[in-house]
C-alpha cells in the first residue's frame, strides 16, 4: 500500500485543529487509513484505490468531513488564466494527451515543497510509474505563454535538464540523466520525443522524463503552472485534478488553461462534480441497514458528497477527484464507512448447505494417516524448482511448466515429481540421526496440451527412507501397506529408470492402471544430493487410489 509521510504540525494546520496523535490515528484507521506517529512524523498507509488520499491535503480534507467539521461537496472555483497550450498533431502515437492548470498565490515553505514533491511522486506511482500520466510543475513567471506541446527528433533540440549542469539533447538525456535512464522505457521504440515549449521556443519539459532547469520552482515562486501528459485523456485529467485540488486545500487559487487539440479545444482542469442517483432501499438491500434517505444524505455529506433528497431518491454529487467511484455500490460503501463499521451489527443469515471435503483432500488425509502410522514424518516443500534439481541431478531429462519471469535460478519450473524435493529434505537433515523416514502428499504439475490451461496438477504421495530399512524389500512393503489400506494388491513390474539402481526399481499396477513406482535410489543421484547413505523411495498417484464412492 502507498505510504505517506507528513510533519504532524503541518497536518494539524491542514486539518484546522490540534488533536492527540493517538486519537488522530484511531480516527484515520476507521476511515481506512493506517496511521502511526513517529516523533514529529505522521506516517500513513493509504488504500490503493484512493488517489485523492495520496496527499496529506487530501487526507486532511477527508478527515475534516469524517470528524463532522466540514460537510458536503468541497467546491473549487477556477477562473480562466487565458493561457493556451497548442497540441501539435505529431504527438499522436507518441503521448497524445495533455492537461494543464495554473495555481496563483502560492506560498512555498519548505514543508509545502516537500509535500508537493511527495504528492507528485505518489501520483506518478499511481499513474503506472508515469506511463499513464506524468506531472510537471513549473514557475509560471519564468514561462512565456502561449505554450506548444509537440515532438522533436532525438537530436532535434537541446536544453539544460533539472539537476544537471549542461545542455543535452533528448537522446542524450535518455542515456545520461538519471531520470532518463529510469523512465526511458516509456519512450522505447518512439522515433520522436514529446516536448513542451513556450512562445519563444524555450523548453519547459520533455515529458514524461524531465523538466528544464530554466523553469525550476523555488521558494520565491508564487505562480505555478502544472501539466500532466499521458496516453489517455481521462488519466491526464484525473492527474491534474488530484494535483490541483490538493494545492487548493492550502488556500491557493486555481485557474484553468485552454488546450487546443487539432480540431477541438478543452478547458482544464474540469472541476465539475460527477452525478449519481441512489435509492433509499439500496442501502437496506446491500448493507442491511435500515436508513432513511435523510440519514443516508447526512452520512454522505460527511463523506464530502453533495446530496439532494427527493422523497426516497437521492442525487449524489461526487467531487472530481473521486476516481474510484464506478457504481452506486461504491457510494454505498461510503455510507457504510461513514456510518462506522464498528457500529454495524453483524448478523448471520442461515444459508443451508452441506459441507463436503474435496475428494482429493479426503484421499490425501487418509494417506497421511497411513504414512504416520508407518512411522513416517510429513514434510512440505515448494512446487517451484529448477531443471537442475528436477532432472539433471536425478540423471533424467524432460519437460515442465516454465516460469517466464523467474526471481531466482532455483525457481524456474514447476516440479514434475516429488522425489527430488524429498532428497533435498534429506540433504538438509544430514546432521541428524538415521534412519530417517519422510513423506509428502503434494502436487506435481505436468504439461498437458489437452488441458484448458495447458497443464494439470497431479496429487502424489512421495516417501523416502534413508539408513536402516532403505532397501527394496522394505519400500515395497510400504507400497503394499498403503495399497492394502485401500483394498488393492498391486502387481510390481521391473522397470529401468536412470534415477534408480538397475534391477532395483519397479512400477506398480492395479487392474491395468499405474499407481506409481518405487526403488533404491541410484548412487550417482545420492552423491549429487550429498547423501552418504542408501535411500529407498516410492512415489504414488493419490488419485489412483479408490475414494469413498468408488
Amino acid at each position, binding site marked *: 500500500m502507498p505510504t505517506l509521510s507528513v510533519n504532524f504540525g503541518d497536518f494539524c494546520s491542514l486539518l484546522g485543529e490540534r488533536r492527540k496523535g493517538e486519537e488522530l490515528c484511531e480516527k484515520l484507521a476507521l476511515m481506512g487509513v493506517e496511521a502511526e506517529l513517529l516523533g514529529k512524523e505522521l506516517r500513513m498507509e493509504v488504500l490503493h*484505490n484512493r488517489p485523492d488520499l495520496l496527499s496529506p491535503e487530501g487526507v486532511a480534507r477527508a478527515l475534516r468531513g469524517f470528524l463532522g467539521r466540514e460537510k458536503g461537496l468541497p467546491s473549487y472555483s477556477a477562473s480562466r488564466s487565458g493561457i493556451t497550450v497548442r497540441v501539435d498533431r505529431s504527438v499522436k502515437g507518441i503521448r497524445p494527451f495533455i492537461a494543464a492548470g495554473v495555481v496563483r498565490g502560492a506560498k512555498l515553505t519548505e514543508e509545502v515543497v516537500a509535500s508537493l514533491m511527495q504528492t507528485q511522486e505518489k501520483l506518478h506511482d499511481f499513474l503506472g510509474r508515469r506511463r499513464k500520466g506524468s506531472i510537471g510543475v513549473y514557475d509560471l513567471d519564468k514561462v512565456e505563454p502561449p505554450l506548444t506541446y509537440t515532438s522533436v527528433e532525438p537530436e532535434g533540440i537541446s536544453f539544460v535538464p533539472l539537476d544537471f549542469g549542461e545542455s543535452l539533447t533528448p537522446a542524450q538525456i535518455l542515456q545520461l540523466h538519471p531520470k532518463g535512464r529510469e523512465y526511458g522505457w516509456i519512450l522505447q521504440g518512439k522515433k520522436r520525443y514529446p516536448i513542451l515549449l513556450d512562445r519563444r521556443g524555450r523548453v519547459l519539459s520533455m515529458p514524461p522524463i524531465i523538466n528544464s532547469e530554466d523553469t525550476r520552482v523555488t521558494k520565491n515562486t508564487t505562480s505555478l503552472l502544472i501539466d500532466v501528459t499521458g496516453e489517455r485523456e481521462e488519466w491526464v485529467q484525473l492527474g491534474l485534478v488530484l494535483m490541483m485540488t490538493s494545492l487548493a486545500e492550502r488556500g491557493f487559487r486555481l485557474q484553468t488553461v485552454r488546450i487546443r487539440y487539432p480540431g477541438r479545444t478543452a478547458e482544464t482542469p474540469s472541476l465539475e462534480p460527477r452525478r449519481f442517483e441512489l435509492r433509499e432501499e439500496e442501502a437496506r438491500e446491500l448493507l442491511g441497514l435500515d436508513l432513511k434517505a435523510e440519514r443516508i444524505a447526512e452520512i454522505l455529506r460527511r463523506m464530502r458528497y453533495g446530496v439532494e433528497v427527493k422523497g426516497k431518491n437521492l442525487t449524489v454529487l461526487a467531487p472530481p477527484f473521486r476516481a474510484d467511484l464506478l457504481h452506486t455500490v461504491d457510494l454505498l460503501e461510503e455510507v457504510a464507512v461513514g456510518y462506522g463499521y464498528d457500529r454495524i451489527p453483524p448478523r448471520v443469515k442461515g444459508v443451508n448447505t452441506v*459441507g463436503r471435503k474435496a475428494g482429493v483432500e479426503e484421499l490425501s488425509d487418509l494417506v497421511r494417516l497411513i504414512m504416520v502410522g508407518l512411522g513416517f514424518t510429513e514434510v512440505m516443500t515448494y512446487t517451484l524448482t529448477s531443471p537442475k534439481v528436477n532432472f539433471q541431478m536425478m540423471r533424467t531429462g524432460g519437460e*515442465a511448466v516454465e516460469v517466464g519471469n523467474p526471481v531466482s535460478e532455483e525457481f524456474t519450473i514447476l516440479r514434475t515429481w516429488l522425489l527430488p524435493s524429498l532428497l533435498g529434505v534429506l540433504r538438509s537433515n544430514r546432521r541428524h540421526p538415521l534412519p530417517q523416514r519422510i513423506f509428502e502428499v503434494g502436487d506435481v504439475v505436468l504439461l498437458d496440451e489437452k488441458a484448458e490451461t495447458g497443464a494439470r496438477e497431479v496429487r502424489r504421495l512421495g516417501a523416502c527412507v534413508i539408513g536402516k530399512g532403505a532397501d527394496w524389500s522394505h519400500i515395497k512393503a510400504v507400497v503394499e501397506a498403503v495399497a492394502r489400506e485401500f483394498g488393492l494388491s498391486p502387481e510390481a513390474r521391473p522397470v529401468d529408470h536412470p534415477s534408480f539402481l538397475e534391477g532395483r526399481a519397479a512400477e506398480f499396477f492395479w487392474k491395468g492402471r499405474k499407481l506409481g513406482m518405487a526403488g533404491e535410489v541410484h548412487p550417482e543421484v545420492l552423491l549429487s544430493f550429498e547423501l552418504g547413505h542408501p535411500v529407498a523411495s516410492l512415489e504414488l498417484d493419490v488419485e489412483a487410489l479408490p475414494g469413498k464412492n468408488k
Partner: protein
Amino acid sequence: MELETQEARTLLFLKERGEAWAEEVEREMGLDPSTLMRAVLGLSQRGYLSVREERSFLLSLTEEGRKYAKEGLPERRLLKKLAEGEKPVEELGDREEAAIALGWLRRKGLAEVAEGRVRLTGRGEEALSGEWPEEELLRRLSEGDLSLPALPPEGEVLERRGLVEVKERTRRLLSLTEEGRRVAGEVRLQEEVTELTHEMLVTGRWKEVRFKRYDPSEGVPPLRPGRIHPQQRIIKEVREALLAMGFVEIKSRAVESEFWNFDALFQAQDHPAREIHSNFTLSRPSRTKLPPRDLVRRVARAHERGVEGSTGWGYRFDPQVSRRAVLCSQTTAATVRYLSSHPHPPLKVFCIDRVYRHERIDYKHLAEFYQCEGIVMDEGLTFRDMLGYLKLILTTLGFERVRFRPGYFPFTEPSVEAEVYHPKRREWVEVLGAGMFRPELLRPLGVKHPVLAWGIGLSRLAMMRLGLEDIRDLFCNDLEALQHWGMGGG
C-alpha cells in the same frame, strides 16, 4: 538382604577358598573385571568382604634382553676379550657395541684407556670371576617372567637399557569377613536373566530365574513418531471448521489463465497488481484456452463500459491478454470459476490451496504459500451478513476479539478487513480480507444474487498459531525441529 547373582556367586566362591586374588576369581568364575568389581563393591559395602590391595612389578625380557641373556652382556664379552691382554681401541670389534661396552666397564672402574689402548684395571681382573646382579636377573628372567613386590636397582638399570620390560600393577586380594562367612552359609544361588523369553513362559522356567533389575534413570535411545507437518495441521483445522459450517471444498489450479486469475475478477488489464513484477508469467505453457466467447465478451464489456449503471474501467480490453498463462496468484480464481458454473443459490464454497507471487524469499515473503478463500451466495444477503460470517469464522477458529476496518479489493464493494487481537503480542493483527463481489464481476457470470467473499491469510494465521516470526518456518523440514514442535503449537 537381597544379593545380586554375581554377588552371591562371588560369596560362594570365596567361602570355599577363604581368600583369593581378584584375577583368579575373574578367571575361574568367567567374569569380566568390571562385573566382578561391581559385585565386590556391593559385598564390601555390606561388610561381607575385605579387599587388600597389593602392588607388584612384573618383569619380562625384551627381545634384546633375551639375546644378551644367551650371549652375555656386551661389557662381559669385552671383559673376557681384554683378559687376553690390552688392545688398541680400534681392534675392539663392532664399533657401536664396543663403545657401549667400554662405557660400562669404565663407569664400573673395570677398564681404563691410555694412549688409544684399553686394558683391565685390578678390579677388572677380579671381576672376571663371579656374577653381576644384572646378569643374575637376566638369568632368572630367561627362565620365566618374575613378579616382585618391589623393583630392585638392577631391574631399573635393565629397564633403562631396554633389556627388561616392567609392568606395574595392583592386585586385589579378596577375603571374606566373619559376617561374610556367616552369610555365605545361607546364600542360595539363583540364575539372573535380562530378558523374558517365549521358552521361559512355556516351560515355566521364569519362576526359577531372577530378572535383572534395571536402573530406570538410565537413558534410552529416542523414539521418533511419525507426524503431520505443523502447517498441514493448521490447514486441517481451518478446513474442518469450514466443513462444519457447511462449506463445500473446491480446488484451484497452479497454472491459470489471466482471464480467470484477473479479468473475471474485474481487475483491469492495466491494474498494477497485474504487472510483471507482481506475478509469475509462464513461457510454457504460454497460452490457455479461453472460456466460451459469450462469457469473454460479457467480461470484456464490464471492463470497458461497465454493467448495470457502472462506468467500467474505460479502456480497450484485449482477449489476447486474457489467454496468457500465469501461476495462480489468488484462490479467488477458483471460487469465481465455480460461481460461473454454479450461478444459483444457495451456495457456500471454500478453497485452500497454494498461490504464487513474484517475490524473493525472505523472512516476510514466500514465492508460494497457502491461501484460504470462500464465498457465500444467497438471496437477500447484506453487508451485515458479511460481518456476521466473518465473525462466525473467526470465532470458530478460536479468536475472541474481532474488529472490522474498511479495506480495498478491486473485486469487492463494500470491502472490509478483519483484525483479531493477539493477546501475546498485545496488538491487533489483520487476518482476513473480505467484501461483497461487485456487480461488474457477478453479472457477466450470470449471477443475480449477492455473494459474500472472504480470504484468510493462512500463512499469518499459521504463524500466530505456531508462534513463528519467520514465514519461511512454515515450510520448515528440519526433522529434529519437527519432532520438538508441540502438538498444540508454540
